[in-house]
Each structure stands twice: as C-alpha cells, then as structure tokens.
C-alpha cells in the first residue's frame, strides 16, 4: 500500500526534521534531568559522608549546571517539538486534502456514479483528520523511543544483567501493548460502532412520527423501547474502557517490575544506580504512552488505505467515443428532439423523472429507458462527454458553502458580476440577493442554510442559466414559489429560451411552468 502521507510529509522535510530533532533533544533532556539529578544526589551524599576533603574534590558545579540546563532544554525543545510537529502535519494534511479532492474529482468524472462520492464526504473528512492526528503522533513516538534508548545507554555501567532487565522490560511493554491493542481493541471498537449505529438508527426511526408521539403521549414508551439499545451501547463502551484500562495497568505494572529487576540485578556504585534508575523512570512514562499509538493504529491504517485507494479503483478508462460535434439531439424514451426543443417529462411521483434527468446529465446510469445524446447512450458518453452540452438544475438545488458569487462562478470560468446580475434577474433571484446584507458577497452557510427552499432554487437556476450549455435540464424549478413570482419567472425564462435558442427538458407539476414546454414525454 502507498502511504498517502509520504509525499506530503516529504515536502515538509524542514519543519519535520526540526521537530524530530526537538523530540530527540526533549527526550534526552527529560531522561538526563532526572538521571543527572539522581547521580548528583547520591554522589553528593557520599562526598558529604567522606568529610571536607571529599566535598572539595566533588565537582558539584558541572552537575548542578547540567540539571538547570536540562530543565530549560526540556521545556524549550518540547515547545519546538509540539509547534514544528504540528506545523509539518497541518501543512502536509492541507496538501492531502487538496490532492484527495483532485483525485476524487477525476474519479467522479471517469466513473459512472459521481453521486456516490458526494455521499462519502463526511467519511473522507474523518479519515483525513485521523491521518493528521497520526502524523502529529509520529514525532512524539520518536521522542519515546529516544528516551528508551537513552535509558538503556545510561544503564550500561551497571553491568549486562541490569541492561538486559531494562531491555526485556521495554520489549515486554511493547509486546503486551501491541498484543492487547491489536487482538482485543479492534473487535471492541467495532462492537461499539455497531451499537452506536443501531441506537442512532432506532432513534431516527422512532423520532420520525413526531405527531403521533405528541398526540398520543408515546414519548415515555418510545424512550423505554430505546433503553435496550442505549444499554447495549453503554455496555460496549464499558467493555472498551475495561480493555483500555487493562492496557494502561499492564504497562504500569511492567514498568514497576522492570525497575525492581534493575535494582536487584545492578552492579556498581550507588550514584550510577541512582542515575540509571531515575533515567529509566523518566523513560518508562513516555514508553508506556506508546500503547496509545497502538490502539489507534488499526483505525489509522484503514483510513490511510481508504484515502490511498480513493479514486484509483474507479478510474476505468472510458470507452473511446467520438466527441459530440456541435449541438446534440436528445432521445428520450424513443422520441428524438432537435436542439432547441422544449420537452416536459410527465408522470406520477415516483415514476423516476428525476432519475431520468440525472442519467441524461451523466450523474448516474440507472434510468431504465432508452436515452441518447447525439445518438450515443449517455452511459457510454459519461459525465466527461456530456457536461459540455447539458446543464442540470437538480431538485435539491445544492449550494456550496461560500458566497452567492462563488456559487454562480461555478457555472463556467470568466463570469463577471454584470453577467451574474443578469442571470439573477432572469431567475427572479435579484430581489433575494438584494435583501442579503452583503449582496453577491453574502456568505451562505453550508447548503445555503440562510435561504428558503424557493430562494435557493432560484439561485441554482441562475447558475444553470449562466453555464451557457445548449440544453437546460430543470427539475421542479418553481416549487415553493408564490404564483406571482412563478408567473414572472415563466415569462422571463420563456423570453430567454427564445432569445438563446436553448433547449429545455423540464420536470414540473405546476401548470404555469409546464406551459413553457411544447412537447410532452410520458414517464410511467
């Protein structure tokens, strides 16, 4: 598997190396601070017992200066470790986000189901966040490993047995941490995720019929019925907490056993034992923290795999199709329409009119009817072949988080503000924008949260008009409009279609809107 972090982190080589140097320095300072302090105390005590001569012979300036230097170095280098480590990770993941978007966009263009990718947005967001966290932790890991090695080095004067005791202890802690984390945690994490999903799904099912609940006073019964699921989630959470607590406890216990074994097996003067024991104590704390990396590792690995694979499996080379020359004809359910035709799809709700429009526009491929664009099956042409010819305004009228102008500018490159104003006027959205405090530069929250359904629909319509494609596909454009505005919209849209010769495929159950089309295709 390709590590999706490798290249972006390589671009952050400078800060990353500096962060790692800081981590190494911080670990050495932390181990050194306690080790030297212990050595100094034991040495001072022995010298003190040895009488004034021994005291004068004891070099106390160097260790006491060393202790102060270690204290300052530990603080400064840990600050550098944190700051530079975050810097490298944050900027590397900024790159990952940008390149992941580009790759998924290519996959959406090449594949047959662009709608699928949109539905995965939240998961990609979480996956990238997980990787960011993991990138930050890489630096801390290096610090813990350095601390362990430094403690081993400082144990050397105590003889091979003590070194072996520490080495075995460090090894045992890693083995135990990894074994528990990889064998027990994934199943428990999955149980919890399932229990959580089941509870959320049940709650959503129960919360649907709110009126029944209010009128018949069913809330206590519903709450009681959900209690079982809630208890299952709590049980899964408790099981996970027990496993995590066990991992921590095992690490603490092994660390204590290691120190005890070192004390029993050490051979050498007391100051050196003091040095080694306190150095080991300082190293074992971050070493035990490595177990926390283990428990996240399975999730991080899955996230990295998903991100590395995103877009790759989907990028099947599209069948080579002659590019559509000029303005294509449309064939819907067997009838072929020349450019500039105005067609309405008519049928009961649930007959699949929206699906037909989306298949025609290349967003999906599952409309069951015979469709063709310029004589070719739209499923073969794909979004890449279709998008220059068709502009779809979906029923949901999606708006990106951004300003009104950002949304309109999506339509094609190089749209000026005058063109935007004209399109907004045509779509009867100019008065909507006029009431917004910042006008065209008004920030619209995610999915145009500030606007009503009808207002969003008119802005989305303005965007479709700006695209300048020869076929306009409109899905319920006037839903949520009052009759007056709808009449105005129909008049302006009709004049614009006359003027530009743009073709129209319309889905609308409203009579005024339906009058824009002169041909009807039944969809049953």
């Amino acid at each position, binding site marked *: 598997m390709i590590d999706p972090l490798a290249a972006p982190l390589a671009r952050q080589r400078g800060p990353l190396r500096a962060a790692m140097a800081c981590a190494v320095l911080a670990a050495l300072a932390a181990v050194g*601070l306690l080790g030297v*302090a*212990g050595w100094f*105390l*034991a040495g001072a005590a022995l010298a003190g017992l040895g009488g004034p001569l021994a005291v004068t012979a004891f070099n*106390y300036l160097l*260790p006491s200066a060393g202790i*102060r230097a270690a204290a300052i170095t530990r*603080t400064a280098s840990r600050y550098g470790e944190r*700051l530079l480590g975050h810097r490298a990770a*944050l900027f590397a993941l*900024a790159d990952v*986000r940008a390149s992941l*978007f580009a790759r*998924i966009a290519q996959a*959406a*263009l090449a594949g047959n189901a662009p709608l699928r*990718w949109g539905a*995965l947005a939240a998961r*990609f*967001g979480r996956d*990238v*966040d997980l990787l960011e966290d993991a990138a930050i932790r890489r630096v801390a890991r290096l610090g813990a490993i350095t601390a362990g090695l430094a403690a081993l080095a400082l144990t050397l004067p105590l003889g091979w047995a003590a070194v072996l005791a520490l080495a075995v202890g460090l090894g045992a802690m890693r083995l135990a941490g990894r074994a528990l984390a990889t064998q027990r945690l994934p199943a428990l994490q999955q149980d919890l995720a399932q229990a959580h999903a089941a509870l959320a799904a*049940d*709650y*959503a099912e129960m*919360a*649907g019929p*709110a*009126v*029944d609940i*209010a*009128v*018949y*006073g*069913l*809330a206590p*019964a*519903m*709450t009681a*019925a959900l209690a079982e699921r809630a208890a299952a989630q709590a049980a899964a959470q408790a099981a996970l907490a027990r496993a995590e607590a066990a991992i*921590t*406890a095992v690490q603490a216990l092994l660390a*204590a*056993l290691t120190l*005890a*074994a070192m*004390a029993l097996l050490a051979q050498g003067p*007391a100051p050196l034992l003091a040095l080694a*024991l306190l150095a080991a104590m300082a190293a074992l704390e971050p070493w035990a923290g490595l177990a926390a990396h283990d428990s996240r590792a399975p999730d991080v690995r899955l996230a990295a795999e998903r991100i590395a694979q995103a877009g790759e499996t989907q990028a099947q080379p599209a069948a080579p199709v002659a590019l559509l020359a000029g303005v294509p004809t449309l064939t819907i359910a067997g009838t072929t329409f020349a450019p500039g035709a105005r067609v309405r799809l008519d049928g009961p709700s649930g007959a699949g009119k929206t699906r037909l429009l989306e298949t025609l526009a*290349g967003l999906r491929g599952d409309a069951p009817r015979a469709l063709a664009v310029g004589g070719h099956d739209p499923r073969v042409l794909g*979004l890449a072949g279709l998008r*220059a010819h068709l502009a779809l305004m979906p029923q949901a009228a999606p708006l990106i988080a951004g300003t009104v102008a950002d949304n309109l500018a999506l*339509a*094609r*490159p190089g749209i000026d503000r005058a063109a935007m104003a004209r399109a907004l006027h045509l779509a009867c959205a100019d*008065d*909507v924008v006029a009431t917004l405090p910042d006008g065209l530069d008004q920030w619209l929250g995610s999915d145009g949260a500030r606007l*009503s*359904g009808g207002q969003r629909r008119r802005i989305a319509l303005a965007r479709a008009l700006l695209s300048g494609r020869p076929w306009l596909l409109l899905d319920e454009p006037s839903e949520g409009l009052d009759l007056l505005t709808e009449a105005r919209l129909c008049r302006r849209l009709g004049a614009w279609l006359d003027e530009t010769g743009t073709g129209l495929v319309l889905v609308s159950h409203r009579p005024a809107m339906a009058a824009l089309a002169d041909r009807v295709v039944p969809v049953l």
Partner: protein
Amino acid sequence: MSHTPPAPTGPTPTGPARPPALRPPRSLRATAWWLADSAGAIPAALGLAWAVAAQAGNGPMWPAAALLVLGGAARALAVAQARLAGQGLAARFQSGLRQVLWPALLPSRMARGALVGEDAHLAVDTIDRTEGLVARFLPLRGASAAAPLLIALAVAPASWVSAMIMLATLVPFVLGLVLAGGLAARRARAQHAALTRASGLFVDRIAHLPLIVASGAEERVGRQLAGATQDVAHRTMAVLAVAFASNAILEFFAALCVALVAVYCGFALLGLLPFPAPEHLTLARAFYTLALAPEFYLGMRRLAAAYHDKQTGEAALEALDTAMTALPDAPPTVPAPTRLRGQDVVIAYPDGTRIGPLAWDWPGPGLHAVTGATGSGKSSLLLALVGQAPLAQGQILGASGALQPSAFNAAVGWAGQAVALPPGSLRRNLALGGAPTASDAAMHTLLESLGLGTMLARREGLDTTLDHRGSGLSGGERRRVGLARAILSGRPILLLDEPTADLDSASATAVRAVLATLARDRLVIVATHDADLVALAQTRCAVDAVEGGLAA
C-alpha cells in the same frame, strides 16, 4: 479539520446555570482513585531511595524491589480503577440525560422544525460526546488540585524545605498560566470565525462534487480549496503557537521543581548551602524527595492533556442546553372543544413558506374537508391544530373563546402520514389512543373494513408483534393501522391526513362509510384529495401555499 489547540489549564469562565440534568457530576470515586495513583508514588519513591541507599551501604536489596513492585501495582490498579469509575459515572450521567432529553425531544421535533437527522444527532452523538468531560476531565481536575498537596505532605517528613520549594513554584506557575491562558483564549477567539468557516470547506466540496464536476469547475474549485486548506493551516498554527506556550509554562515549572529540589538536596548533602542548614538530610531522605518531585506536577500535566475532552464536552452540553431551552412550553390542558373555528390563520415556517390566511368553522359533530394540491399545506393546517406547525397570525377558537394549539391534544385522534409503532402487539398499538378498550371483535371488524384482513390472516392477527421498524408492514398498511388507532381511540375530534389514499376502491368506499358514521357524533376533519370523500363533507376549507420570507 478536527484539530483543536490544546488550550491551557488556566481558569475558565463558568457557564450560565444549567438545568440539573445537564450539570455534569463530580466523580469523587474517580478523583479518589487518581489521588490513590499519586499516593502509589510514595512506596515507589521509598523503593527507589532504599535501592540507592542499600547500594551505598551494602544493605539488602529485596525490600527495595518489593516496594517498587508494590507501588507499581498500586498505581496500575488505581489508574485502571480511576478510568473505570469515570467511565461508569459518565454512563450514568448519559443515561440520565437520555431520560430527560428523549421524552422532551421526541414529541416536539416537528414543532421545533428539526429534521430527524438533526434530532438523532443531538439525542445520540451529542450525548455521547459528554463522555470525556465527565469520565476524565472532571475527575482529573479534582485530583490535580489535591495531588500537589498530597505529594508535598508526603515529602515534608523527609525534607520540609523541599516541600516548601515545591509549593513555592506553584505561585509563578499559576500567574504565568493565567496570563498565557488569557492570551491564548483571545487569539483563539480572533481566529474562530475564519477557522470554522474554512475548515468545513473540504467536506463541503466533496459533498458537492457531483455539482462541481457537472459544471466542469473541478480544477478551479481544487485550486481554491488548496489555497483554503493552506490558510486553515496558517491560522491554526497562529492559535497553536500561543496555546503551546501555556503548556510550556507548565513544563517549565515541572522541570524547575525537579531541578530546584535536586540542587537544594545536593548542596545540603554536601554541606555547601549558602545559609545555615535548616534540616538534616540523608541520602535516603534526599533521594525519596527527588523521586517524588516529578509527581508534584503530574496531575496538572494529565489535566492539560485532557483539555480537549473538556472542550468537546462543554460544547456538547451547550448544544443540549440550547435545545432544551428552545423546547416549546406545553399549554395547560383544556377539555375537548365542541366547536373549532379559525380566523385569519397564517402558518409560517422558518424557511419562509407561508400558508393562509385561512378561515373555517366546524360547528360540531360532522365531516369537514381540507382540500388543496399536493404540498399546498393541507397537512400543515391539521398540524397547526395539534401545535406541530408554527402559527404566525390569527386565532383558533373553541365554543367559548380562543384555544391554544395542542391544549386539546388529549381529545384528538390523529392519523397522519407517518405512524409511530412502539414495540408491542398490534392489539396494544391499536389501543394506544387510550379511552374505552375496544373488543377484539371491534378491532377485527374495523381492520377488515380498512382492507387489512389479508394482513391479519398472513400474520398472527391482533397478536402480531410490531415495532418501530415496521415489522414487515408496507407503508400503506402502517398508515391504515394509524387510521384504525385514531378511530378506536374514541376521542371526540379526529384529524385524518389522506385517510383514503393508497386504498383500492372497495376499501376506500368502506372507509368513507365508516367516516360518515363516525361523523354523526364526532368532529371528523379530513385533509384529502378524494373527491368522493369531499362530497360527503359539510364544509370545505381550501388551502394554497405562498412563499414569502425575504422575497415577499
């Protein structure tokens, strides 16, 4: 980006008073276990001191090893128990939250205009996010105040001067933290709006990928996104640079505490203190003191590491509190009105959709129709009567004056588009309307007349087990069960949304007959398309939706 700067442990403003169920509990047990962990450091430090002294004086080493293992075991147990106690308390707190929130959220969702997904998020995920605050942060906060004192007390018998040195470092530490914490909070506030706006863009752009790709805008959007993600990284670093400074202050004093104790003890042992020795130190005492020095600030370092839990939990409680305060007040219940009139009634949804003005007069028992095209707001009128749609203008009147919507819900038998089926038998579900318990025979007859006979035969009749997932009933069958429940409730007012939709013509005829009979002694209001049903009605109220809002 999810990354939140690890802010300082400094004082935080206390939030406004919250209802008791939303006040996170203090776990004395978890706090006590965290303190037990600090106490476990005492035998471990004794063990270390013994080991060094034994090595210097050729004493036996095994008591030192025993003390080290004893201390380690005690700490392992204490840390594990502290986590479990915290987790247990968090589970009980969350269970209490559910008991309070769910009964309040479930019936008020429509009235608050919340989507099912929003409410499920609030009721499940948001409650879950309080865990870290209750299970970890609060117990650690309790322990972090007491642990330094405990360590100082443990050190005092060996070296009271060292205990005083440790306590003395607390003063500049707290001052530094307050200063850095304030600066960090100001920096975070200054960047907050830009960061929340920009950090959501990645997920937003992927969610809108079909639109972006269909518009051919993927390259332009990709370039903008690359710029925006860099901008987020720059701004986050600006916040972190200050936030890490408060961590550095903590680190500095933790290191300083160790260094000062080591230097003092060393010079005292050498007899080189520049002032008269205030106490007599031995190697064992000095070493015991030094081994405890890192423990003095450990509690606060753990607390700083749990700061993210605090932020997440506080934000979750804030969201729950906002939801609880937004709950509509239930009006005092009134007896069943015998007449229902509407004057100049306008229903206005937050998205700008307005319905009305509407007027009607339903003088008493009888069948009355509400008509209009699909989506015109027929259902909204019925919803407004039971307090589930926002009334912007006008009045609903009973026989003796104005009525508060939802005040007479106990008199209403409701059958709408979505049917709530709490787990239980079909019989129990049909009887949920309360009132006179209908006989099995009456239930059977009604269900047969609603075209549910084949369903009864296919399943186990009235003993069929139902649950909220539908239990194999089709959407139409569920709705007819809802209709049967409303009719069987015996309540004097029936509000029925499309009672004859999805019925074959024979069943529809049967339902119309049932409704006509019921209308002799009950007030039956139907929102319907069905021309035959409208023909039976005594009055007709026509509804058409008008969009208003900003554009009006």
